[in-house]
């Protein structure tokens, strides 16, 4: 049916990547370049009383020092979001108040990295230490105010209360929760905690800048959001947008961690002041401490249900640790409700309340899953608890109560991103098939009947086995906010330039977008020269976040290619001497319809040559933009099989299966890769990824080794099954897949743990210490 879509086309940059030919930000160096080091705060909460950089300045080779003394105190948010950003303006590039260990004190630019590092140590600072808030549950009522003395404000009209350490607040209700809860025969009330996490993209954050031949500032950056970088740097560095060009070269993974504008303004200011190229590359320690993290969360659920398992009411109350600054605080919070509560849409009474609070700990930000991961841990267990209490089979339960095609949830309209959401009816879902196929491939019933905390299989055994499952949804792009655009032109050999603002983080979006154009134009993928993420040469795109690129940028490319096709048909008909409606495209040619007596055919190359040189000359070219009226959810069903060692407390995942509905997988191999990567990250987040802090708020496990990124031998057998649906608003039926699958491991493993042991896990990660404690209680 499809020729270039739904095909495992090799990544167009693949061979260049695996032969080491591609360039990443740190691979760019320029003559006369300065090297930058940043001094970060060693105190969780302190005021700079005296700042003396005179000794550092005297070191030969030190060229520029940026600090609160010489950098304008301009408020902004580091969140790389659309304008006006839904995150509060509570950050200055270099301020005189340090709000977490890792906050920016100053930056030194020198002739070499060694000199810059030496100079940093010579800077003398007298701090007034303040009492920090290190427990997010105590932040709201604390006498300590983190942003009190400042002038932070929300950029959009939303609730914001810095005097009570509230960075964000969200409330939404459909139906009447209290009444329905009170009238329910059965009630459940449980709280769940999830930990901090680092994205651990293999490439650390980096930025390089220089002044081009005409005096403009060029920034090469490891960013997911080049256009937002241009806008935010312009704001902070007070350089007109017209003077800034941002280029994203290859980037070594993002996962949300690079949807943040952190290093770019620093190199920009240094280059703008010195007129010399500048490079800043963060060490792994700096990435752990100073960039952004997954927010720590407490989610408290109340559920009222009937004896037959019908849930009448759910209240999800979320408390989010925003850290020292409120980057993504509001939107991650809303997502915790908006991406979970619509799943079982037959529940009539739903309430979501949430607060994001400031602490003197590292800052949360965007992280794959974006609030949904944090909330599904509890949501998935609550559903399991209801099934357990009412004797329902969870597989059949999800089939019965989950949202289906043609249905809606009032939550879609009630909960948006800092404002009301957008009403939406589901038009594509293979969730029921995912449940059935997943259960059958996983041998769910055989295993579920065999295992169980009281089963013969587990009785008296040291190693206990269990299986658990969870259903999930996410979204595809932010409706009526995110915009993507594409530009295409034809070349005289029948090839095409495809210029897109979309940002390939390694996901393969450059390839996928070329596949979409190839399908529209019936041209092989290798005939597309793809240029992406360069603010001078590619049209606007909000960037790589919110599971948007395939769905949103894909539609822009599809529209654009459609316009090109019409132009090609017109010129082809002209050459063949027939009417426009008498021709079609076929395999890089325009051919006459079968009903034309004398068949005619002209190649794309000849068509472009004709348009260039023969008659009514013009460039075959087009642009298109796309905004989506909705955010169709992908769905997934996850099954896990685990072993619990009751002596050591070690949980071992021995099998994992995910059945996923991403609409049409434009490139099935790359789609599977997205799911597999997210699942493995999700499993390690469930089992061991965490931030350990000292009593002063210092992160103790700030290296790959201490933090514990999984290696190949840690990975259980993971099977991903893609089950298509067809989303009519997506390109060739596609939705998204990048985020959803990180949400599954927490609930699926916790439910398997209950199956194996009869005990519930309320905190992640499920460390051996915690598991032993739970088993003992």
């Amino acid at each position, binding site marked *: 049916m499809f020729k270039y879509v739904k095909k*495992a086309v*090799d*990544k167009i*940059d*693949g*061979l*260049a*990547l*695996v*032969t*080491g*030919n*591609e*360039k*990443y930000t*740190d*691979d760019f160096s320029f003559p006369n370049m300065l090297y930058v080091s940043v001094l970060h705060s060693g105190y969780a909460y302190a005021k700079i009383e005296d700042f003396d950089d005179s000794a550092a300045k005297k070191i030969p080779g030190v060229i520029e020092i940026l600090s609160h003394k010489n950098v304008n105190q301009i408020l902004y948010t580091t969140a790389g979001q659309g304008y006006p950003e839904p995150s509060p303006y509570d950050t200055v590039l270099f301020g005189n108040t340090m709000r977490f260990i890792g906050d920016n004190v100053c930056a030194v630019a020198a002739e070499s990295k060694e000199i810059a590092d030496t100079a940093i140590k010579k800077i003398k600072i007298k701090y007034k230490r303040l009492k920090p808030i290190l427990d997010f549950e105590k932040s709201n009522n604390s006498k300590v105010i983190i942003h009190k003395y400042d002038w932070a404000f929300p950029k959009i009209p939303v609730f914001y209360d810095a005097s009570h350490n509230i960075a964000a607040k969200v409330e939404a209700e459909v139906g009447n929760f209290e009444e329905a809860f009170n009238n329910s025969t059965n009630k459940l009330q449980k709280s769940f905690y999830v930990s901090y996490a680092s*994205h*651990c*993209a*293999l*490439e*650390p954050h980096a930025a390089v800048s220089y002044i081009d031949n005409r005096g403009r500032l060029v920034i090469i950056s490891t960013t997911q959001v080049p256009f937002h970088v241009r806008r935010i740097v312009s704001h902070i560095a007070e350089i007109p947008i017209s003077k800034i060009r941002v280029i994203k070269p*290859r*980037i*070594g*993974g993002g*996962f949300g961690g690079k949807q943040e504008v952190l290093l770019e303004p620093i190199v920009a200011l240094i280059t703008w002041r010195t007129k010399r190229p500048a490079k800043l*590359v963060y*060490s*792994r320690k700096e990435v752990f401490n100073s960039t952004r993290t997954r927010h720590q969360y407490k989610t408290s659920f109340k559920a009222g249900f009937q004896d037959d398992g019908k849930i009448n009411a759910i209240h999800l109350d979320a408390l989010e640790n925003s850290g020292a600054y409120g980057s993504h605080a509001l939107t991650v919070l809303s997502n915790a409700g908006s991406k979970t509560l619509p799943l079982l849409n037959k529940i009539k009474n739903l309430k979501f309340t949430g607060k994001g609070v400031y602490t003197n700990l590292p800052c949360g930000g965007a992280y794959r899953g974006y609030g949904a991961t944090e909330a599904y841990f509890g949501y998935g267990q609550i559903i399991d608890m209801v099934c357990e209490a009412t004797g329902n089979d969870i597989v059949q339960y999800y089939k019965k109560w989950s949202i289906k095609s043609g249905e809606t949830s009032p939550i879609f309209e009630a909960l948006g991103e800092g404002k009301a959401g957008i009403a939406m009816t589901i038009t594509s879902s293979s969730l029921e098939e995912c449940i059935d196929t997943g259960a059958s491939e996983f041998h769910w019933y055989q295993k579920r009947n065999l295992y169980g905390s009281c089963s013969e299989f587990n009785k008296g055994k040291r190693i206990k086995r269990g299986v658990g499952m969870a259903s999930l949804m996410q979204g595809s792009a932010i409706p009526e906010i995110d915009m993507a655009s594409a530009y295409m032109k034809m070349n005289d050999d029948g090839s095409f330039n495809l210029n897109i603002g979309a940002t390939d*983080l*390694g*996901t*393969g979006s450059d390839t996928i977008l070329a596949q979409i154009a190839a399908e529209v134009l019936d041209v092989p993928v290798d005939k597309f020269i793809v240029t992406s993420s360069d603010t001078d040469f590619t049209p606007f795109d909000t960037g790589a976040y919110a599971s948007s690129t395939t769905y949103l940028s894909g539609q822009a490319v599809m529209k654009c290619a459609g316009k090109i096709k019409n132009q090609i048909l017109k010129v082809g008909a002209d050459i063949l001497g027939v009417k426009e409606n008498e021709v079609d495209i076929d395999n890089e040619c325009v051919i006459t319809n079968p009903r034309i007596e004398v068949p005619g055919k002209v190649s794309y190359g000849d068509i472009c040559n004709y348009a260039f040189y023969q008659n009514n000359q013009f460039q075959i070219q087009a642009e298109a933009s796309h905004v989506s009226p909705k955010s169709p959810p992908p769905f997934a069903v996850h099954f896990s099989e685990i072993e619990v060692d009751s002596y050591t407390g070690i949980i071992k995942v021995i099998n994992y299966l995910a059945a996923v509905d991403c609409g049409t997988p434009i490139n099935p*191999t*790359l789609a*599977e*890769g997205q799911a*597999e*990567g*997210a*699942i*493995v*990250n999700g499993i390690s987040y469930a089992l061991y990824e965490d931030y350990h802090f000292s009593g002063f708020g210092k992160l103790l496990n700030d*290296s*790959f*080794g201490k933090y514990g*990124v999984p*290696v*190949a*031998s840690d*990975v259980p057998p*993971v099977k991903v099954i893609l089950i298509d649906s067809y989303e009519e608003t997506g390109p060739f039926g596609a939705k998204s897949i990048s985020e959803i699958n990180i949400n599954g491991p927490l609930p699926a493993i916790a439910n398997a743990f209950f199956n194996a042991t009869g005990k519930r896990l309320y905190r992640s990660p499920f460390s051996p210490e915690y598991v032993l404690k739970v088993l003992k209680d």
Partner: protein
Amino acid sequence: MKIKFNINNKLEDIEIKPAETLLNALRTNGFTEVKCGCNEGECGACIVLIDEKPVNSCQVLAMSVISKKILTVKGVGTLHNPHMLQKIFTSSGADQCGFCSPGMVLSAYSLLKDNPNPTDKEIVESLDGNLCRCTGYVKIIDAVRRTALIMNENITIRE
């Protein structure tokens, strides 16, 4: 100072400082295919083969390997003349962001040279020094497995 190093079977003039790591020396002399993910010997992005053995180049002083043979991923195969392993990495979807790929390819290349017919366990263990956050390792392990099969059976694969 300038010293001759044997890199990818060519003698190259490399400018080094006395206490410089091999990783730094390689990158500042243009061998940017060797990546730096942590500079602490934990991620494997900077792996090169030194006398055919995979080593984290951030943990080795350049001075200490002057007389040895250094192989980077470009010595395994190039864009215009890729090695079978590199082709299969790409066709298997083992390359997402590609930042771990140079080190990953070198670890796999070294394994297959020593052990052309590895078990799954041997494949996994040979990759344990290389972190990857994108793929979950599934397709990387698959690529190495497929390369071994194809190279052993001398099947020609698509270009």
